């Protein structure tokens, strides 16, 4: 009976064992140190920080009410934005599929092609759309072509990577069956691979179109066409009520884009 009481007294409840706790404290401490370093070292003039809420609300006040002037212009710019996103997505399909094909382990012709494909995908994905736009504006001058190319070059990596993964995840069995029937490589692709990746293909392209709509709203900030051009113009001339209208237009565009994609998804998939 005494033993039992002793046992009860020893039963101290702890949430984690010793090792887990040490690791947890270690991670917490490291994170804290990094944060403290970042706060102390960063090049910020702190009085501005405390003033920021005032500044932001004053900017908000200057924007209100949104100006309805130039709605026609804004609508045309929105249309241009949609065109850039759509044409770019359409063009990307033709460029991304061959890359996906050589970058998928089970379809690539040889190792050199595999690495070439992976290199294209990685470089496309690691460079942000707006940086691609910067480059193409420098080459082709300001305008929609730079915007379209920027979106295309960024989307190749996205669509190519996801399609490559879809190809790698196919069921091998139909491929085996087609090979056993004496079909050539091209016929195996058409019959055993293409039908299997079709649903993924539609889903990925629709998803990327949605993303591209958002991305093409900023292209204009570096001169690559779309609604961003007039946004930049309005900001530069301190036409804040117009800026507000443009922002509302962008929200509307993005929401419409989302509605269309979810409609397409439910229809096609």
């Amino acid at each position, binding site marked *: 009976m005494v033993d039992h009481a002793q046992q009860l007294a020893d039963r101290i409840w702890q949430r984690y064992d010793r090792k887990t706790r040490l690791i947890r404290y270690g991670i917490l401490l490291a994170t804290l140190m*990094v*944060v403290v370093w*970042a*706060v102390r*070292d*960063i*090049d*910020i*003039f702190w009085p*501005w*920080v405390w*003033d*920021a809420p005032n*500044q*932001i609300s*004053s*900017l908000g006040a200057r924007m209100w009410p949104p100006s309805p002037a130039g709605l026609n212009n804004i609508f045309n710019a929105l*249309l*241009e934005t949609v*065109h*850039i996103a*759509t*044409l770019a997505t*359409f063009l990307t399909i033709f460029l991304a599929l061959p890359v996906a094909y050589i970058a998928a382990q089970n379809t690539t012709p040889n190792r050199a092609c595999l690495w070439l494909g992976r290199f294209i995908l*990685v*470089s496309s994905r*690691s*460079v*942000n759309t*707006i*940086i691609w736009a*910067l*480059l193409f504006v*420098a*080459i*082709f*001058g300001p*305008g*929609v*072509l730079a915007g379209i190319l920027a979106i295309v070059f960024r989307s190749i990596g996205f669509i190519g990577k996801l399609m490559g993964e879809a190809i790698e995840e196919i069921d091998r069995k139909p491929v085996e069956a087609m090979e056993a029937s004496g079909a050539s490589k091209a016929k195996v692709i058409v019959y055993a691979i293409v039908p299997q990746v079709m649903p993924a293909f539609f889903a990925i392209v629709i998803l990327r179109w949605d993303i591209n709509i*958002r*991305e093409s*709203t*900023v292209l204009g*900030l*570096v001169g690559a*066409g779309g609604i*961003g051009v007039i*946004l*930049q113009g309005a*900001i530069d001339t301190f036409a804040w009520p117009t*800026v507000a209208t443009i*922002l509302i237009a*962008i*929200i509307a565009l*993005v*929401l419409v884009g989302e509605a269309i994609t979810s409609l397409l998804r439910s229809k096609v998939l």
Partner: protein
Amino acid sequence: MTPPDPQPSVPRTWKKPPFIANPLVRYGIIIVAVVYLVWAFGSLPFNWARISEGIPRAARIFSGGFPPSFERFGLLLTGFKESFQIAILATLLGVLLSIPFAVMAARNIAPMPIYLIGRSVIIISRSFHPVIVAILFVAAVGFGPLAGILTLTLYSIGFVGKLLAEEIEEIDWGQVEAMRATGAGYLATLFYAVFPQILPRQVGLSMYQLDSNLRASAVVGIVGAGGIGGTLMNAFGRYDYDFAFAILLIIIAVILLSEGISGWVRKKIW
């Protein structure tokens, strides 16, 4: 087992059934697509004269860009340091702030008016590309990393908040009922029945968000919100293509590294 043959006379020809059964819809879609492509392409203002100069310009840019120059390494390092700091602080703020917004935007635990507020904050912060938000913050609080931090904080709230809200909507409701049955208040219920269910996900999301904030911090600088993007923009503006390509290479390397680390950590946690 074998059902009786429904077709008494045997069909001897076969055509692949079309993807879309209704011919009107089928050809309609094709026509609409073609007309759209022609219209869109025709209506866009291409400056062909300027575009035709593109090839020699590209040659000049790339020949100017190679080999990339790492001479001004100090400048590069300062830029990246600032990008890291922006990303870290914005992730911390964003992840912390996303929790209350996620609670507000979860249909099952937030009352209707609060839910609408939470949802609209998340929808609005997700609709705007971070670069647009950055340009507005730059206009409001001036050039520098502060604008970058504010931008990416909002960006993180939108992304993490949305996923977290969905997670909250899918929690095991039994635990909440159990807590309520013990007489726990709203906050106690949140902390004991809701947060433990979503926290593991939140840690993974933070790692993911740190990675994407690092990516985004490289671009918000282009409009003046601090970090390596500003350095890159300047290099481009001054036709320092060799330095610009050096920055680009490092950006790619850092992004790959951060993607790798973030993926590894998330795999460890989940």
